[in-house]
């Protein structure tokens, strides 16, 4: 159509009301009293951020010595959207029934998953959403899976205690929730856990999964986990991942060709021979770590 505008993905820019206008809204506070100079300082900051056609919507006195600004402007920056590659959890999304069936057929014993909200973090709602029977957003929790042996340790669980429990329960997967993030406490706690697990020789024996509202998959990888789940995760998302990853480690990677690349290189996980008895089935290489 004449006059019509199309997005240029090689030079992607924010959209206000016309393609490529680059319009964005910004709000911040400067620790100076509102004044023409403060206004100028705010505009200069916006300029340094790469904004053109800066429109200062308001300068408000937020308190003595604090000026608050709302600014609209047009960013110069563009992004080559066609070049963006994001590391993603590649597991195929399956239903509870499918997952149960796969475990029954291909593994033949219950997978043991142990979860907790660690450190001094007392937020249980997230980990409960994943574990509890009733689940989250209409998706049943892991405790409801016939072929999962799901243990939710609750919140305020110290890393050491979690690892002990994981060993005792012979966990196949460890699921960690982190909600409080001030001063990056979540990152510290997560790294500490995988570090301790490394020292105890547990890293390769279990699947490490992190979750929480500020957790992303890349962040989880950075902390030594194998997968990270964020806002809005459903239990079946996690279960889908765990079962696929488990099979991949067993060499049954045939479930899905494009499974996620393991972060820690291609170290092949131990093989297990599926057994009928659920009680005794375990990863053969697993030993009590203490």
């Amino acid at each position: 159509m004449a006059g019509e505008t199309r997005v240029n993905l090689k030079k992607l820019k924010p959209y206000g009301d016309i393609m490529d206008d680059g319009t964005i809204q910004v709000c911040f506070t400067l620790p100076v009293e509102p004044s023409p100079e403060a206004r100028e300082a705010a505009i200069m900051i916006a300029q340094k951020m790469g904004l053109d056609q800066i429109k200062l919507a308001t300068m408000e006195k937020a308190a003595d010595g604090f000026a608050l600004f709302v600014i609209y402007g047009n960013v110069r920056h563009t992004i080559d959207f066609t070049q963006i590659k994001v590391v993603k959890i590649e597991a195929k999304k399956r239903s509870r029934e499918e997952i149960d069936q796969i475990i029954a057929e291909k593994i033949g014993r219950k997978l043991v998953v142990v979860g907790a909200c660690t450190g001094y973090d007392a937020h249980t709602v997230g980990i409960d959403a994943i574990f509890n029977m009733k689940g989250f957003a209409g998706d049943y929790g892991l405790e409801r899976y016939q072929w999962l042996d799901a243990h939710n340790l609750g919140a305020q669980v110290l890393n050491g205690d979690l690892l002990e429990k994981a060993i005792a329960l012979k966990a196949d997967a460890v699921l960690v929730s982190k909600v409080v993030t001030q001063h990056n406490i979540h990152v510290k706690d997560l790294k500490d856990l995988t570090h301790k697990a490394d020292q105890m020789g547990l890293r390769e024996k279990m699947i490490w999964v992190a979750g929480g509202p500020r957790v992303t998959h890349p962040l989880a990888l950075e902390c030594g986990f194998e997968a990270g789940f964020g806002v809005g995760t459903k239990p079946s998302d996690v279960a889908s991942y765990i079962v696929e990853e488990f099979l991949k480690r067993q060499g049954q990677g045939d479930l899905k060709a494009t499974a996620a690349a393991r972060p820690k290189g291609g170290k092949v996980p131990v093989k297990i021979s599926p057994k009928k008895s659920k009680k005794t089935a375990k990863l053969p290489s697993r030993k009590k770590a203490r």
Partner: protein
Amino acid sequence: MAQLRLDSSKIDHCRQLAREISKPVEELIDTHTTIAIERATLRLIGVNGAVNRGGQAFPEVNAIIEDLQSEGTLSKGVLYWFVNGMIQKKMTAAELGTAVALRKINLLKLPRSPDEQVKKEARRLCDEAKKFLIRQREHRDSLRAELKDRFDPEGKNGPLLYVIVATGNIYDDVIQAKAAAQAGADAIAVIRSTAQSLLDYVPHGATTVGFGGTYATQENFRIMREALDAEGKRLGRYIRLTNYCSGLCMTEIAALGAMERLDFLLNDAMYGILFRDINMKRTLIDQHFSRLIIALSRIVIHTGEDNYLTTADAIENGHQVLASQFINERFASNAHLTDDLMGLGHAQEMNPEHPNVFLLEIARAQMTREIFPRAPIKFMPPTRYKCGDIFYSHLMDAMFNLVGVVTGQTIQLLGMATEAMHTPLLQDRWMSIKNAVYIFNGAKDLGRDIEYKKDGIICSWADKVLDDTVRLLESIRTQGLFRAIEKKAFAEVSRTETGGKGADGVMRRDSDYLNPFFEIL
């Protein structure tokens, strides 16, 4: 719906006063025509092309009418000459329109067929035009039926979500309109470019440059209607389209809007006078003809009383709005609009820092609902007190949405957090719709679940405003509408009878004035 227990005899009295106020104006209307009425008449019978004037597309109707007017021959009505031309030249209206506009044919120089024949042919052409409009209306109604349109003029299904687009470029407008519909908007208004209302012609074709809005053109109407039809089908909801039928071309916009199946038109008996400084007589005569077309096409009008509260304080002048609504209602009835087509406008424009301001706003909105129970009331958002603090502005809109749903308004024009800044960005509109959806759903039945205390703040305020309205209408009746407007009856604006733009486009009709539309609309 909660009840304010208003004195119905006072309301009846107001309607009676409005009737008396309109009387002298009706005489004026019956004895005059304007260049705009004549242009619209030509458009209705099929003259919608444009000629090149100085590199720009200039409507044929303007070329034709200007020439007739400069010869002083327009007071017989354009059809008097034009239909004769069609007969003489055996041309369609469109063909003759182009030829005359290009001055290849001079209508005044043609031989004249017998008056009866011209009259009869004129009548036939007008009947055809009417049939076309009815077909367009039926087409629109069938689309609505197909999509199980839930619009209820009395607002019983909750307020309709109405947003504006205003990029200046019709194609960008389409993007924004679709996005708005996806987010939940029920109606899209394409705001007109600044000052289009002062143009004494309707621009031609698709347009991509406008200031503060996009030009209203027949092609732009068509493009947007087509886009909304498609989007509506995809979404399974009928999406309404709105434009502005005010200013020097209100008659023509009414005609084009009717042809292009618009649903809503901003159309007010006095807005042009007060806010665009258009001549009083011109406006009042034009509004009547525009409304005749609108009534036929069963388009819902939106009157512009909300604007009063942008120039006059909303707390002090609530009665001006109500008085004007009674007058608008009267003029609309005179043009055969039924109650369910009268989208009387008002607005939530009181100082947000006034103590108990929500109570006063509830009183105003609720009384509007109760006084015009069958009208699809159009409720406009806060604009005047909107400020650069977009977070605060967003809250003002939330409270506006709350008042709207509690008092059962029919059409809710959603406010924008960035009202004080710019015409809305896509994201502004999105969050505004989210705002309305949230409030309308959460307070769905609140209005039906509460009662207003007798003699409470809300009921007393409504009583006061009604009393003030009676007084204002009485004084307008006494002075006459023209003089009252001069004395700032509305919006703190003064206009004189002879002042304003477009006065020279008004003509007293000759005794043999010919325009069958006045009979059949």
